């Protein structure tokens, strides 16, 4: 009996170690640019292995600055980026995959050659790099274009090459700055699937985006940054929780004054009255509505990420 409890203890300890062991964290990052502009003010978040983390915020909020600090392209004034519970150095970053906000490829270099080159730079052997390149080219639908110079490709295809460059070395962590911008809906789905697959493989994936519906659909957790500060972070459900649960009731042709005893906001739409309330006792609200008229809708209002975002940033 006691030995089993000990086993469970060991199991949990191992599990926790495993999670922390592959977690990417930032702690209190601060960055002020030479111009005196405070770009980041104590930015902290954590991304677990296999978690897809959506990083959202208005233009100039500090997403790119944060990601560049994580990738070591910029240096924070203070604060720390940790990987697997320890400091993040060059050798570890070399195993990261990165797609910068401003895409960069050698315009005159051929597609396959370019992907292969980055594979080698990230430390793959010639054979492994060739193999990874061939697989990616195939997966991303670039087979026909392997011998074309990058400059001859459409923007969408250039973006695929950019993604291939970030993926070629089978990275431990993926950091993508607005990877979905400028893609058509089909390309968005393809990219989303590629990222999900990496996350399923246990890789923490961080990406920034303005497309909140996409982030809501794709991400396990979300960080909202505003003017250099993390104003909210957690799973979408947690963020909703912080918002407070709301009930939405629609009653057709109700008796007037039925909602007088309830808090919240009552609006009239055609012959219907709509009540949005934060009352804790949902059954009491339902009873009041049923006695007032025909209840057409009764449900928990789930705020969209867009609403959460607007609330958080306001």
């Amino acid at each position, binding site marked *: 009996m006691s030995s089993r409890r000990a086993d469970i203890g060991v199991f949990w300890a191992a599990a926790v170690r495993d999670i922390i062991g592959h977690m990417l964290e930032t702690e209190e990052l601060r960055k002020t640019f030479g111009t005196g502009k405070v770009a980041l003010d104590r930015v902290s978040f954590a991304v677990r292995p296999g978690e897809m983390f959506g990083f959202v915020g208005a233009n100039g909020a500090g997403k790119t600055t944060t990601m*560049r600090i994580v*990738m*070591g*392209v*910029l240096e924070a004034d203070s604060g720390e980026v940790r990987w697997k519970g320890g400091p993040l150095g*060059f050798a570890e*970053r*070399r195993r*990261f995959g*990165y797609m*910068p906000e*401003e*895409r*960069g*490829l*050698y*315009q*005159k*270099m051929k597609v396959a050659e370019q992907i292969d*080159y*980055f594979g*080698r*730079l*990230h*430390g793959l052997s010639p054979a492994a790099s060739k193999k990874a390149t061939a697989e990616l080219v195939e997966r991303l639908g670039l087979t026909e274009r392997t011998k074309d110079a990058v400059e001859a490709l459409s923007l969408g295809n250039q973006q695929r090459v950019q993604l291939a*460059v*970030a993926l070629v070395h089978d990275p431990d962590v993926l950091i993508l700055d607005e990877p979905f911008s400028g893609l058509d809906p089909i390309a968005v789905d393809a990219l989303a699937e590629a990222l999900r697959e990496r996350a399923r493989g246990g890789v923490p994936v961080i990406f920034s985006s303005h497309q909140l519906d996409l982030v809501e659909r794709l991400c396990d957790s979300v960080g909202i940054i505003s003017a250099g500060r993390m104003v909210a972070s957690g799973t979408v459900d947690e963020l909703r929780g912080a918002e407070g649960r709301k009930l939405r009731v629609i009653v057709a042709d109700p008796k007037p004054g039925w909602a007088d005893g309830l808090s919240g906001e009552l609006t009239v739409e055609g012959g219907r009255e709509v009540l949005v309330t934060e009352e804790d006792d949902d059954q009491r609200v339902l009873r009041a509505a049923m006695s007032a008229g025909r209840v057409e809708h009764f449900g928990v209002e789930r705020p969209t990420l867009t609403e959460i975002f607007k609330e958080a940033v306001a």
Partner: protein
Amino acid sequence: MNGLLLVAGREIRTQVRSKAFVVGLVIMVLLVGAISFAPKVLGGPDSYKVGLVASERLPVWGDTKIEWKDYADEAGAQRAVLDGDVDAALVGGTRVLTDGAIDDQLGLLLQSAHREAQIGSSGVKITPLSMESVGADTRYQKTRSGIAVVLVIVLFMLIIGTPMMVAMGVVEEKGSRIVEILLTSVRPWQLLGGKILGLGAVGMINLVAILVAGLGGALASGLAVDFPPGMAGIVVGVCVWFVLGYVFFAALAAALGSLVSRQEEVGNVLTPMTMTMMASYGVAFYSVKEPTSLVATIVSYIPPFSSMVMPVRSAAAEVPLWQVLISAGLMVAGVVVVVLLAARIYERAVLRTGARVRLRDVVTSR
């Protein structure tokens, strides 16, 4: 090290495959090959044709060759002179017919040969004067100057052209932000060093091809017999000086290039460097004519000017080895300083995109 070699490999492959490289190389090779042929074609003749009418051949000695041609009568010889078939015709062993005034050298040659023939027939033997220079050996002066001129042009083009490519490559990577990805997988010194190494190898390919074309042309045209002693030393010296000069200017070009983000700004930001190069070029050209002058001697010790002036000076005139070694030692020291400084500037500036980075900011910060 591996990262450095990968970067260098990419630079070499990219350049060697480009049209600009192939076309440039072919043009240079043809040009230098032609130049090494030219003195034979353009220089004064060292053989003459002389017609003979009722005359014996004269005992000519020395480097100059005379091709004799017999004519039956004076009228035939006269026609040959006027048609340019022969340079002169000797009639009856006493008169020389020419078309206008006789070529100075040929005139002297015929006169002295005639005199010797006359004296020889009276039984007196003459030993030719033996010539000894107690000053500098000037026998090879013409060839030396020729080689020096070619070197000035070749070194100038390669030492200015190759660092230019380094700067353009740096700006390409910075401007396209590809450097952000590169620097998460290689160190700045690997990226910078690989670029300098790779493009340097491309420059070296150019230089070796040009030297081979020049030497090959000289051998084929027979010009090579006039090569001064120690030609091999001159050739090796040129390669060493190219490497020193190239690394110096390439590091400088990379550092300056890393300050800007757009190709259009490269020319502007490199101005101080191009001015230095033009100055080196000017002095180098001057030392072709005046290799022993005080200016050429002094400047051939000062880095980076020495990288162009010293090889030219030692081709144009004989320079003691110890002087070359001192000059090379100073240049190596200059290269080390510039490379260290350039690496520092590059590392700090290459990720700062946007407006041109001020040199003072990168050198002094942190």
